[in-house]
């Protein structure tokens, strides 16, 4: 019974495919999976916008949206109707073709990333043997579309936003990938399915998630920092900092194209969160062996919602970084720590099991972490700025 419930979508797909000729089955199977992804994740986007506005409201001691439907639950529908019926304005001097393509490319790239994300046992669109590589390759298309949007709009704010976005995304893509390398070293595979399968085993009742090792924990923290920066979320939302450059690279977009940018951004966030879950939090695996009767996809989406909740919490807490702080954090803290983490992963792999391994690995990570943090802190020497004329 639990087996059936766990595999219900796989069984349903097989049953549907049974009605088709054998030659058409691979294509039909892919199309079915794509439809499922294209429905599920935008739906999650709708729920997330509501959750985010409610959560931020509560953090600021407000009620949040409460006018449309019970508890404002129909707010995403109202937003969708609003953005669909709005006028689509294209600046006169904009490069029309590129201006039109940028949001489409962003959403397409964001959707492509889900192809290698295992959302449940046997539930992945394609099990590429270079899945992780594919994920990051597709992820860097986002940068292209962001710059397309910024450049084609012919607006100084767009261009500034796009330049900030490019600088930020490239800086943080390095630690993002390097944090992943430790997992790949340990798992010995680039396939996301293999990586999850390795974590879906238990000693007694405890799982073998990579986050429960020194290198895994550090890798997870670094990955989450870099993922926040990659998805342009607060406190790394400089590319669209409202108080400085209004909406950044998509300031010249209106109506549905604007909504597409929003969708693409949130889809990117879900995808990187899903990747963090796959790499460090055991993917669809249950946190305790006695909880394995709950279907695998439920676990995946629970973990995803937890990470989204954490993103919202962070957004409600931290103020935006300055550009130099952002770059300092990337190059002087996150990147060295990610490189060091690879070393720790190697040490962990070759040392014999036991307490000593834990102590050594933790020490290798903790001591440079404290030193680097002290270095970041020490540099903050500000002078009182004196003005010649304005006093």
């Amino acid at each position, binding site marked *: 019974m639990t087996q059936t419930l766990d595999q219900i979508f796989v069984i349903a797909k097989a049953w549907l495919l049974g009605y088709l000729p054998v030659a058409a089955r691979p294509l039909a199977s892919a199309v079915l999976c794509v439809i499922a992804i294209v429905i599920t994740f935008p739906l999650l986007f709708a729920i997330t916008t509501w959750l985010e506005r409610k*959560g931020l409201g*509560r*953090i*600021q*001691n*407000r*009620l949040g949206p*409460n006018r449309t439907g019970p508890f404002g639950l129909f707010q995403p529908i109202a937003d969708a109707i609003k953005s669909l019926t709005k006028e689509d304005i294209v600046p006169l001097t904009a490069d029309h073709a590129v201006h039109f393509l940028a949001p489409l490319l962003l959403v397409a790239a964001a959707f492509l990333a889900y192809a290698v994300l295992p959302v449940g046992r046997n539930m992945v669109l394609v099990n590429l043997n270079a899945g992780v590589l594919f994920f990051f390759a597709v992820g860097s298309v986002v940068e292209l579309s962001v710059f397309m949007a910024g450049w084609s709009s012919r607006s100084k704010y767009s261009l500034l936003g796009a330049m900030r976005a490019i600088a930020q995304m490239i800086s943080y893509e390095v630690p993002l990938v390097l944090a992943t390398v430790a997992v790949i070293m340990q798992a010995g595979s680039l396939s996301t399915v293999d990586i999850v399968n390795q974590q879906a085993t238990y000693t007694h009742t405890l799982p073998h998630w990579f986050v429960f090792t020194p290198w895994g924990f550090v890798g997870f923290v670094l990955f989450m920092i870099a993922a926040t920066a990659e998805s342009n979320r607060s406190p790394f939302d400089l590319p669209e900092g409202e108080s400085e450059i209004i909406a950044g690279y998509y300031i010249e977009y209106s109506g549905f194209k604007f909504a597409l940018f929003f969708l693409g951004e949130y889809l990117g966030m879900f995808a990187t969160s899903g990747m963090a879950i796959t790499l460090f939090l055991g993917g669809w695996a249950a946190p305790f062996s006695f909880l394995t009767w709950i279907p695998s996809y439920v676990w995946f989406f629970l973990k995803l919602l937890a990470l989204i909740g954490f993103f919202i*919490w*962070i957004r*409600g*807490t*931290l103020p935006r970084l300055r550009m130099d702080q952002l770059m300092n954090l990337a190059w002087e803290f996150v990147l060295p720590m990610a490189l060091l983490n690879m070393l720790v992963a190697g040490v962990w792999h070759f040392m014999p099991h036991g307490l000593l391994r834990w102590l050594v690995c933790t020490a290798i990570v903790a001591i440079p*972490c*404290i030193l680097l*943090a*002290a270095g970041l*802190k020490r540099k903050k020497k500000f002078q009182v700025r004196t003005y010649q004329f304005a006093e």
Partner: protein
Amino acid sequence: MFGDGILKGLAETARNFFGSYRSKNRLTTIQYPEERLPQIEAARSFPFLVYDGADWQQGMRCVACQICEKECPPKCILIKKSADKKPDATGKLQAYPAVFDIDISVCMSCQICVEVCPFDAIKMDVDYDLPTADRFAGLLLDKQKLSKSNQYYHQIHPTEAAAVDAALAAERAAAAAKAKAAADAAAAKAAAPAPAPQVQPAGGEPR
């Protein structure tokens, strides 16, 4: 410690998040159309015309002197004086405004009309809930729409209205006393036998 500021901040926001579910005092927002803040007494929105008694046409205090029309900085008041005279609330014959329009889309709520009115006829309203689908005719208030009773004035500005009423009563009492004195004098004059006309020398001192 490195990162403790972030943890403190996270704890603070979490406290706010859960606290907003536990105590209603934290939610300071007034849910506007359903809830409203009590208005302070000095609140003002747009002018209205005060009338005494029950009938707005008969009791209107305005005598169409047009001072407010002339003083109004954005020129949003239009008054046309009546040709005839009608008795006011006290029975005295007065001119009245045949037309009294205020365009509240132009009005800037400066209260100068209230300051200059010698008859305490125009006062400031507190009603701010005046949206309309027609931005021209819907915001041009005529005499009837502007007329509001003295009771309403007492309701919205009790202290000020009481002072105005006292002043008006004193004024009327003084006028009545003066009229009575004049009437008494006239009566006394009529009652007394006519004194012999005094012959005044020509070229007497002028008074």
